């Protein structure tokens, strides 16, 4: 096979958002790039909610809106705090989001990734599908010089390997580049695709044309576990899912699919899904450890990008934009070194980490570095007690029943005090503010 004799400028392992971004940017600049994907096409193994953040993609493909498979642009964001029978919501909707170049879109990853990967091939990269990378090949000095796959015994050589292999990151972990993901820093999310006529979706969510609404929900829906639920409107379908930290699931009696069923049958969610047809059930891990869980990002002959590098902002539910940005920055680092004919040594590739420090990726992850541990450590309060207290307060306030308002106020404050001490609440508020700064 001629390919095995060829030495590539770079091999990219994986064809998700980070791998496609890296491969595209390098190929576009004329580098000789090989991308290896285990699915039958880019997207067939990939799962996300999914929201596309335009900015990260615009920096790579400025005119992506011309032919990318986009579902709806998001004009309304709903944040719901839920107990078993209610939700207290904060909705933000603005006609400003009906702009010429919308800021966020809902997408279907199997279609979107396929499109992105077609751009990678157009840019000149060679893409191998249905091929799983099994290990990294190192020379005697420990420099990564290529990969082995399940297709052929002989290694494929390259100057640098970009690991865009996703949350499980088997290749990097087996090669000792980073530790195993811990059950308390990763969430298991399950999701279903529910199909409805587009007019029905638009009527139910008060949308016109390609406007879209998204709901992010927290509260007793996760039964005391650290996690969130979501519901996104696509063109002719609704993505509905829920995810919790794996170690919380392990300590719980509930199965992921029973949790999803309970969320779908919540009185606030059920009417939105009525009469829909479910066409797919998916599960995926989401790295949620934040800044403190970021592993070593580069070494002699290798760089890690996307979920494999734990690049997810769990607070803002952002991941694909961090993936694309880390993929792009890794590519730019490799391009600069290739042009200067510099070695792909750890010392030179450290430039990747320095460049990332200047982007929103590292700045945001640093800002929220205390949040994952705070929420996880206080999960009973944040995902149980507080949502229930808020719901009870709202109901007391809105129910007109002959009780005077002063007494209602007292009852609300008494309920808070008796359920969670003043010191407990102040402590949680203080910790949250401190972790948020």
């Amino acid at each position: 096979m001629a390919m095995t004799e060829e030495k590539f400028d770079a091999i990219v392992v994986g064809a998700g958002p980070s791998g496609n971004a890296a491969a595209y940017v390098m190929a576009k600049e004329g580098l000789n790039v090989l991308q290896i994907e285990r699915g039958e096409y880019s997207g067939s193994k990939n799962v996300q909610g999914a929201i596309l953040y335009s900015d990260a993609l615009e920096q790579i493909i400025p005119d992506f809106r011309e032919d990318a498979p986009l579902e709806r642009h998001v004009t309304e964001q709903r944040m719901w705090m839920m107990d078993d029978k209610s939700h207290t919501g904060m909705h933000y909707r603005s006609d400003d989001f009906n702009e010429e170049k919308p800021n966020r879109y809902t997408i279907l990853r199997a279609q979107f990734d396929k499109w992105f990967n077609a751009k990678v091939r157009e840019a000149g990269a060679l893409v191998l599908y249905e091929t799983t990378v099994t290990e990294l090949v190192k020379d005697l000095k420990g420099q990564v010089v290529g990969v082995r796959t399940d297709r052929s015994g002989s290694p494929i050589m390259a100057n640098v390997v970009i690991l865009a292999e996703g949350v499980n990151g088997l290749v990097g972990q087996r090669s000792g580049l980073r530790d195993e993901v811990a059950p308390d820093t990763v969430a298991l999310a399950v999701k279903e695709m529910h199909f409805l006529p587009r007019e029905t979706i638009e009527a139910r969510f008060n949308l016109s044309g390609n406007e879209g609404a998204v709901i992010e929900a927290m509260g007793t829906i996760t039964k005391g576990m650290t996690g969130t639920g979501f519901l996104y409107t696509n063109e002719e379908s609704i993505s509905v899912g829920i995810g919790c930290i794996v170690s919380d699931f392990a300590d719980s009696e509930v199965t992921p699919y029973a949790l999803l069923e309970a969320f779908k049958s919540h009185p606030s969610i059920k009417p939105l899904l009525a009469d829909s047809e479910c066409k797919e059930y998916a599960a995926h891990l989401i790295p949620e450890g934040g800044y403190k869980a970021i592993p070593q990002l580069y070494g002699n002959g290798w760089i890690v990008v996307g979920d494999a590098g734990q690049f997810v902002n769990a607070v803002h539910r952002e991941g694909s934009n961090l993936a694309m940005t880390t993929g792009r920055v890794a590519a730019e680092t490799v391009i600069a070194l290739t042009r200067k004919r510099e070695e792909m040594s750890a010392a030179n590739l450290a430039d990747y980490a320095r460049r990332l420090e200047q982007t929103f990726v590292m700045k945001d992850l640093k800002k929220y570095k205390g949040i994952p541990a705070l929420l996880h450590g206080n999960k009973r309060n944040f995902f149980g007690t507080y949502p229930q207290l808020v719901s009870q307060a709202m109901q007391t306030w809105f129910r007109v029943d002959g009780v005077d308002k002063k007494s209602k106020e007292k009852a609300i404050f008494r309920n808070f005090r008796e359920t969670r001490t003043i010191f407990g609440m102040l402590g949680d508020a203080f910790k949250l503010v401190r972790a948020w700064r």
Partner: protein
Amino acid sequence: MSEVMTAPSAKVEEKLFQNRYLVDAGRPHIRVKQHSVPSASLLAMTRLCPAGCYSVTESGQVEVVADGCLECGTCRIMTKRTGEVEWNYPRGGFGVLYKFG
């Protein structure tokens, strides 16, 4: 208990029926190593696996049938410390084929 808490338990088989798979017959990508008593982590997989692939045999061991696997990796992470599960990706092209993802 509210109505929501007592919602009928989901049948995971019905969910998996919606999905497309290309099963690599005779070459399961996940194996449980021989054991007499499963660890708490392995036993937890009988509830935790989102595809319901894990079950307990009559003699108390945990077994896996990975045909409906969604390739999330939860069992791999849960049992990394105990080493009870041998986990690989399916061979290239095999396994779950997401239509929408």
